[in-house]
């Protein structure tokens, strides 16, 4: 029996993208929350992510590079289809990435500008990712195995909804991360953000889920919901994903509000993201370009997938262990003392 290499690679990439969302999600979210913090609080907020943001963003490179390597056809269709938001995201990530260092070196005006650049860059990067997500889910116009749509296909009411939702979701991760990494007044503030954002994200997730069923009828059919009626067996058997997501968000809301646990809000928010992610996987598997190209159609040659699988089998455990080790080194509450300067 031979391995189904494309399927294994789809799973690997799914994990990489999930890790990206959970990790870079909180540091991008902290940038989104920057306008609501005082200058002193901002220094603690950057200190809480400074040692790890670069490694977090590397999962995005693995996502992009891995898609190119494992599913070149999907990469070649999705990237041109999302040309504008991808370019916007890259430009925004440049600004917010250099801002970590530049904020420390800027004097008065410089520091103010790079603080703005960090915040606006984070916000634009997240919105752009939300547009890409929406464009991906609503479907891409494909002809002869190439993108054949227009330059603004990615901009629809649905993608606006996904963009706003993802932004609020990342902000939730960011606020929950700050609950874990801060103390005193900032922590109280972060709890307040997390409480409000978890409620907002429940609403967003529900809206996006419902809109997805309508925007892409094939997704509706997958969940047993269609114009002709509802397949209750199907809907109920798939319901754990949305139920866990909603429950986790409610848990994040309760734990952020009660103030008893510093780490549970982030862990529960992360669980909610995983549930949403599972819902997405249910909606589109086994397609990598939804309802147009399957993962087997898009996969690279088996010998390329096999070579990379060897690399992943050896390197991924190594990467995960030193990533965990670095997080452990920088455990505990963030203080501006190990910030830049």
């Amino acid at each position, binding site marked *: 029996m031979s391995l189904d290499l494309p399927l294994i690679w789809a799973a690997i990439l799914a994990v990489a993208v999930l890790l990206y969302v959970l990790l870079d999600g909180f540091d991008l979210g902290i940038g989104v929350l920057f306008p609501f913090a005082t200058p002193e609080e901002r220094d603690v907020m950057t200190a809480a992510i400074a040692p790890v943001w670069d490694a977090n963003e*590397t999962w995005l490179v693995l996502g992009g590079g891995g898609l190119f390597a494992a599913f070149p056809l999907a990469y070649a269709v999705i*990237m041109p289809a999302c040309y504008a938001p991808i370019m*916007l995201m*890259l430009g925004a990530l440049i600004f917010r990435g250099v801002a970590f260092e530049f904020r420390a070196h800027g004097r008065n005006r410089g520091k103010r500008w790079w603080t703005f650049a960090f915040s606006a860059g984070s916000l634009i990067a997240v919105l752009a990712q939300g547009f890409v997500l929406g464009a991906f889910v609503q479907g891409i116009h494909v002809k002869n195995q190439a993108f054949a749509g227009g330059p603004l296909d990615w901009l629809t009411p649905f993608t606006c909804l996904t963009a706003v939702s993802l932004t609020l979701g990342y902000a939730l991760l960011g606020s929950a991360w700050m609950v874990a990494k801060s103390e005193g007044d900032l922590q109280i503030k972060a709890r307040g953000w997390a409480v409000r954002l978890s409620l907002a994200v429940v609403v967003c997730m529900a809206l996006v889920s419902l809109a997805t069923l309508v925007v892409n009828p094939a997704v509706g059919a997958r969940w047993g919901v269609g114009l002709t009626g509802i397949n209750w067996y199907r809907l109920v058997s798939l319901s754990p994903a949305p139920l866990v997501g909603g429950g986790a968000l409610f848990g994040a809301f309760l734990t952020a509000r009660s103030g008893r646990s510093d780490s549970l809000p982030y862990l529960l928010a992360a669980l909610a993201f995983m549930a949403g992610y599972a819902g997405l996987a249910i909606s589109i598997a086994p397609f990598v370009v939804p309802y147009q190209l399957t993962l087997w159609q898009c996969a690279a040659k088996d010998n390329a997938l096999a070579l990379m699988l060897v690399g992943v089998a050896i390197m991924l455990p190594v990467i995960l262990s030193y990533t965990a080790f670095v997080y452990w080194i920088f455990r505990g509450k963030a203080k501006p003392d190990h910030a830049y300067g």
Partner: protein
Amino acid sequence: MVFDHFLLSRLQFAFTVAFHIIFPAFTIGLGSYLAVLEGLWLTTRRTVFKNLYFFWIKIFALAFGMGVVSGVVMSYQFGTNWSVFAVKTGSVLGPLLGYEVLTAFFLEASFLGVMLFGWNRVGPALHFTATFAVAFGTLISASWILAANSWMQTPAGFAIENGRFIAVDWIKVIFTPSFPTRLAHMVTAAYLTTALTVLGAAGLQQVRNKATPETKVMMRMAIGLIALLAPLQLVIGHESGKVAHEYQPAKVAAMEGWWESGRQPTILLGWPDDRSESTKVLLQTPVGFGSWVVAGDASTPLKGLKAWPKADRPPSLIPFWAFRIMVGLGLAMIGVGFYGAFLWVRRKLDAARVYPWLTLATAPAGFLAVVCGWMATEVGRQPFVVYGWLRTRDAISPVADGAVATSLVGVLVVYSLVFSAGALYIGRLLFAGPSSSEQARDAVAAPGNALQLAAAAEEIAP
């Protein structure tokens, strides 16, 4: 010339990749330099090495940050602008880039945090390991990316199946004929680039009559490396040229400005013109010298550009001049290395008046030479993106002209802003120079302590 999405995408790729290479060219060398400095500090316990480490790590952090964010752009541009290239080469180049992420990017990014913020959090051995991991990561990364690019220059170990490249022998795919010399050429170039910057930074303080024990050590370490590597680079570059002559003779003809076939001269100065298919020569060696340099025998006839159909020729002007500027700068590096070594041996280095000015002039030479070298080799590969097999024109994405025009303008604006600010901040640090009491970044900065006061004093200082 039509400014369609094809030309605009080429301009965008050229600009973003030229911008990007500046930073790896610097951080590959600086990473190794930091590892050496920390190693010297741990073994000798001379504070001068610790001060230098803390000084250069600030500049490393700035340059590395710009390198990372401009590098992320590259990993997406293959898809956004060159999607046909991505589909056709994905099964060959994908694993190489995948391995780069797995073996280098994560290593660098994860240990960078420890390197920058962990001095007081982890023990000296672990901190040194982190510095070493980052330095080693930059070298691994260079190896993979040079392997990928060399495959595009001198493709090997592949077959074509359904119009797509597939690998038949991975060892041949990775170790293509041009890979070893090109990797050696690039890593040496990166070390030289860093050494010239370090030398110029030391020279700057000497010009200002503010030389310190730290800047004197910087100057000597840099001179030693340049005197050793700059002549070696000439040899490596020549070897790399011989490989190009064997596998990409049209590129060599363009770099040399040769149009007619036969025994060739070396044109030192001139102006090649694609339209008239000739080079206006200002200065050249006797005929035969060029054949001797490239083929090792003055009587060997070599092909000129006219030996290829027009559609298969690279443009001549950019490879010709980029190559000459690179070689000229390389010779200047040998000069500055040898002259410095001479002064050092004569014990005249610290009192030298002209030499520090010279080091200021050559400080950016490495960056310029790296960009010119890449321009020569990448433009010389045209009109192909995979040499001989896939034309650049056939690799383009189906995207709208307006979308690419907009993104190109955006890229120009964003990169100019970021580059100006980065250059300003690095320039400020270099101008201030290393102090004799540099601190780790995670030193406790409670209000009123020495570090805060020092920072405040720096703010007030003119």
